[in-house]
């Protein structure tokens, strides 16, 4: 089976480079709840001058991206677009787990372009950085070549333009809204990220309730460290199109840096609105 169409399958790496030079994001340091410091370097620079940068952020490493700074030539920026508001228009950092992804694009006056993507992550000391890189690579090799299968991760939007079905109370009155998929925010989910995961087997549990027979199946996944999943994200197994909602995430960490994730998920019924998400990662050009 071919590799899914994804520019970033479980790898936090430079994703695009036209010339010899590359850009690598070296720091994404959160200063909650107000700002995030982002720093990067240019590898194999042709000249010491002539680079301009654009920094964007998203809730998924696959975008879509929102520009936060552009047209400057220094090698860091500070994202301060955080609001402690009760509406969902802007990123609100109050929740325990809010993952953000930053993309740095660099353009040289004569040598072309390059870009890199990184999630907000802690950092380890130099010795453990090597161990982390080894473990991440081992996880990627094991899952992509041995015991994993292809998945698409749809990260749920928690901020963005509100849908028309959302009232001023913050409640959406249409769970199957075609525009927001019941999330109250237009599009509902960020672009899917293709990766690999190992899925445990589990029986279908049934219980009889006044609302009929309810079927549930909770399974345990082991997946790579990127994208870091959160509550209510959707994971689609591309081979059987079974879809799961994230219930609980346990990260394996070294010095607070995530190496891989163990995720408890629940299979969702086929009448659920999340089945409106398009997940055909072999489609060329991709649908998303």
């Amino acid at each position, binding site marked *: 089976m071919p590799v899914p169409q994804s520019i970033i399958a479980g790898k936090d790496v430079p994703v695009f480079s036209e010339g010899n030079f590359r850009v690598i994001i070296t720091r994404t340091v959160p200063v909650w709840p107000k700002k995030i410091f982002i720093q990067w370097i240019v590898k194999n620079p042709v000249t010491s001058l002539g680079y301009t940068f654009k920094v964007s952020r998203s809730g998924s490493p696959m975008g879509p991206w929102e520009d936060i700074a552009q047209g400057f030539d220094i090698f860091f920026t500070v994202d301060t677009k955080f609001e402690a508001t009760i509406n969902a228009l802007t990123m609100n950092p109050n929740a325990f787990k809010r993952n953000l992804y930053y993309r740095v694009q660099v353009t040289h006056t004569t040598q072309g372009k390059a870009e890199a993507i990184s999630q907000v992550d802690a950092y380890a000391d130099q010795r453990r950085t090597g161990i982390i890189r080894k473990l991440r690579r081992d996880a990627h090799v094991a899952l992509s070549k041995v015991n994993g299968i292809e998945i698409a991760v749809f990260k749920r939007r928690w901020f963005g333009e509100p849908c028309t079905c959302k*009232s001023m*109370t913050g*409640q*959406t*009155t*249409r*769970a*199957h809204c*075609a525009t927001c998929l*019941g999330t109250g925010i237009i599009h509902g989910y960020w672009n899917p990220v293709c990766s690999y995961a190992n899925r445990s087997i589990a029986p279908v549990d049934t219980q*009889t*309730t*006044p*609302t*009929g*027979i*309810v*079927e*549930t*199946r909770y399974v345990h996944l082991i997946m790579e460290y990127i994208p870091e999943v959160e509550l209510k994200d959707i994971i689609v197994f591309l081979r059987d199109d079974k879809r799961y*909602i994230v219930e609980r995430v346990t990260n394996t960490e070294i010095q607070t840096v995530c190496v891989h994730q163990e995720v408890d998920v*629940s*299979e*969702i*019924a*086929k*009448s*659920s*609105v999340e089945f409106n998400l398009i997940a055909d990662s072999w489609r060329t050009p991709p649908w998303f």
Partner: protein
Amino acid sequence: MSNIIVKTNKGQAGNALPRLDGEGADIVPGSMLAVVGLFVFALQSRFAFSEVEPLPWAWSSTLKPSDTEDGTPLPEGSPRRLYIGSAYNIEANTRNYRPAIIVGRSGDVTVAKVVIDNYLGGIQQTGAKAHHIMATMPLMIYCESETPGESSTIGEAVWVFLLATRDIYRKDFGFHELSEPTLGDTVPAKKDKEVWVTPVSFYVTYDIRWGTVPIAPRLRELVVNLIQRRKEPLEDILIQVAQFGGIDS
């Protein structure tokens, strides 16, 4: 109820409770399934698609998710199909389907004595007695959805519908009382995913009447009369006993 005509065969059921056309022959008027079926039918009629009052949800006899009967995709913005049924339905097609309105009994059916020993009257010659009591059945309607906003909106539509039509249903279906419904709190329920349920509860009170006829006195009467009046055909005597509880003198 505007676009649905409720056809009943009132008078044929043998008591004051009319029965809907197509109602199961084994379901006795006043039984739990009859009362639940009435409100299932009423809510299906309320949420049936109407050009006059288009709702975001429409009850349909099919739950095919995104296509019409002939396979044509539903146009954008079409109402979401709503499942309305009775509690403890084990149909596989309805499993985990949302939004849904489920009608069920929510507790014990209790009876309240209105006359001494529930006794209305009797016929001394035959020993036949008539009884009467009032039964109260609590009902619960679960309005389930994937978002709390939708669940509460459907719950309120159901609640207002019951509140506004209670006099109609009380009159037409022989209920002694149909209480004002209570709209419950919208609460999460853990299923395959988190769903939200808004309960609407109320109760119906209805008459239960029954009669008892002792068989032994009748049989004795039959024997005595057969001995005395052999000239009358036996069949006529049996019909008189069965229909009128005695024999014309």
